[in-house]
């Protein structure tokens, strides 16, 4: 997923003239990087806000307070509020099991955790349609008992959970494996119960990594389009999340409204990146070399 390169401060300052690239090359590289960033990242972001505000603040606010838009915002928040805590619990449990125990099927579990990343979101949605849809495996049974999953909120929640499942676990597994088991063992020998061990030794060690995973998980949960699109049925005011609402408005040539709702998602992304940056700094400070073993 994302690459987290830890750039050492001072790496440029320490470079000797013999290993430094010639100035023109340096400027060319920086120039290309900045131009690329401007055209492909900054410009679209600005476009979103520019388009959203093209008809003025009144139209912008009207687009956001439209009942359908409000329903979409509400649904998106609801889905995230269910999917993120569940994935938090699943993620911690799965990474605990993988990092701490050896068991049959461990490799398979590690591979399966990555499945949502490797499979197209559309397929993820289709899996649930095949399982719970009218013609699906459990379809008849569900219809008999009057339970609606596909084209209803439960389906959206399920698809979102599936798609966002790896974020927390992927963040925690390497962290917990690197931290080892000794502190927990020390706590057990000192008489701590299982819950006390988790609360006092495991959690403090993983909290920043955990928060980082939750932030990414949340961003994806709110922004997921493909899988949700398949299971939602696009019923206005009922099963439209924000990304789906944006698409519908756009298809209706209602650009200003589409971009207004999109601007909310963009804002969410910016805030997420901001928090992520802060958390990342904490994570690196806590796992920086020397904080664990620095006797010489």
């Amino acid at each position: 997923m994302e690459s987290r390169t830890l750039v050492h401060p001072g790496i440029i300052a320490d470079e000797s003239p013999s290993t430094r690239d010639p100035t023109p090359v340096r400027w060319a590289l920086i120039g290309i990087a900045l131009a690329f960033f401007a055209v492909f990242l900054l410009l679209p972001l600005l476009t979103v806000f520019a388009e959203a505000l093209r008809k003025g603040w009144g139209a912008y606010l009207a687009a956001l307070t439209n009942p359908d838009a409000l329903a979409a915002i509400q649904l998106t928040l609801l889905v995230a509020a269910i999917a993120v805590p569940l994935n938090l619990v699943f993620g911690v449990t799965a990474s605990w099991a993988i990092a701490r125990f050896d068991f049959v099927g461990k490799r398979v579990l590690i591979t399966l955790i990555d499945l949502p990343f490797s499979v197209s979101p559309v397929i993820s949605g289709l899996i649930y349609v095949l399982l719970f849809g009218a013609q699906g495996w459990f379809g008849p049974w569900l219809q008999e008992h009057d339970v609606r999953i596909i084209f209803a909120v439960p389906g959206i929640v399920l698809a979102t959970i599936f798609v966002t499942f790896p974020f927390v676990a992927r963040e925690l597994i390497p962290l917990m494996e690197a931290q080892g088991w000794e502190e927990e063992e020390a706590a057990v020998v000192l008489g701590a119960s299982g819950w006390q061990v988790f609360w006092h030794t495991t959690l403090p060690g993983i909290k920043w990594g955990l928060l980082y995973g939750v932030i990414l998980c949340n961003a994806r949960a709110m922004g997921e389009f493909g899988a949700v699109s398949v299971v939602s049925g696009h019923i206005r005011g009922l099963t439209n999340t924000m990304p789906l609402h944006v698409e519908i408005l756009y298809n209706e040539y209602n650009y200003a409204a589409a971009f207004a709702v999109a601007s909310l998602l963009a804002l969410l992304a910016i805030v997420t990146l901001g928090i992520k940056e802060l958390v990342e700094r904490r994570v690196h400070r806590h796992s920086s070399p020397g904080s664990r073993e620095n006797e010489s």
Partner: protein
Amino acid sequence: MSIAIRHLSKRFGAFQALDDVSIDIGSGELVALLGPSGCGKTTLLRIIAGLEYADRGEVLLDGDDASHRHVRERQVGFVFQHYALFRHMSVFDNVAFGLRVRSRKLRPTEAQIRERVVRLLKLVQLDWLADRHPSQLSGGQRQRIALARALAVEPKVLLLDEPFGALDAKVRKELRRWLRQLHDEIHVTSVFVTHDQEEALEVADRVVLINSGRVEQVGTPESVYETPATPFVANFLGSVNLFHGRIEGGQLHVGEHVIGLDSGDREPGGGAVAFVRPHDFDLVPGWPAGSGLPAKIERVVSIGPTAQLELSRGDGEAGEPIEVHLDRQTLGRLGVREGDRVLLRPRRIRLFQTDALAA
């Protein structure tokens, strides 16, 4: 609390970590489990603590079978090799942890906890570090905090895994002496694991030598050093020279040379391995006829009161150089130098019959 280990065996896959181990440790004793890395000593320690389970055998604490008692209820203190201090807690909170996690009924008041933690920090002479975090401490300080934390719950048994392994030589020596003093003060039954024979011999009341999951010898430091029971022990404790030969007519034949034996060493004939410590040789200049092994001095390192000589076999047999320690005066009196020929006469030999070994 006394510890009795009865017929303990443990496998990790195809690896036999412990093989029918039985040891008795008396109340208040300080015992070292000594052996090369991978010999199973740490596994044994972890089984005593309850962090690992044996495949067979049992651990009796004060005569009661503890095999099925949970770690929490065994009342052991464990000091981990890398200390395993809680990184995010201050030194004070680390030491207080074992008291604070107790159930409400058994938990001392916060004032009592404070008092006990301060007392323990004074005991390990680090009360001025109470507010620091583990990352701000040196290795030796962390080690002592880990010890204070283990002692806070008033364990009946103290278990230490390579307690000085990660420290530099000087600190290690200091802490060793300090641990011995501490034990004499608090007298809690203690078992520590080490691969460093010097450490084991200096600190422990008794030493348990372990090799490949088996107990080779148990005894006081003097007895295991002076009268090793097996070739492994002879080889492992201190530096030693090894000669293969045969016993015939009350003499040891090494190649074509003959070394006279004390009556005590005269075992009936057959193949034998002889161990001679570097300081148990007499040197005779030249290669006169008679009992002894001809050798050539290759190197003399004469620093401090003892001179260390490295010799090669005079009969051209390849192999490890022979190590001999002499005091400087003796070396001066003999007047031998590098390149000289000498006859080596062992004063003390530890003999093991190889036929018996094979059996």
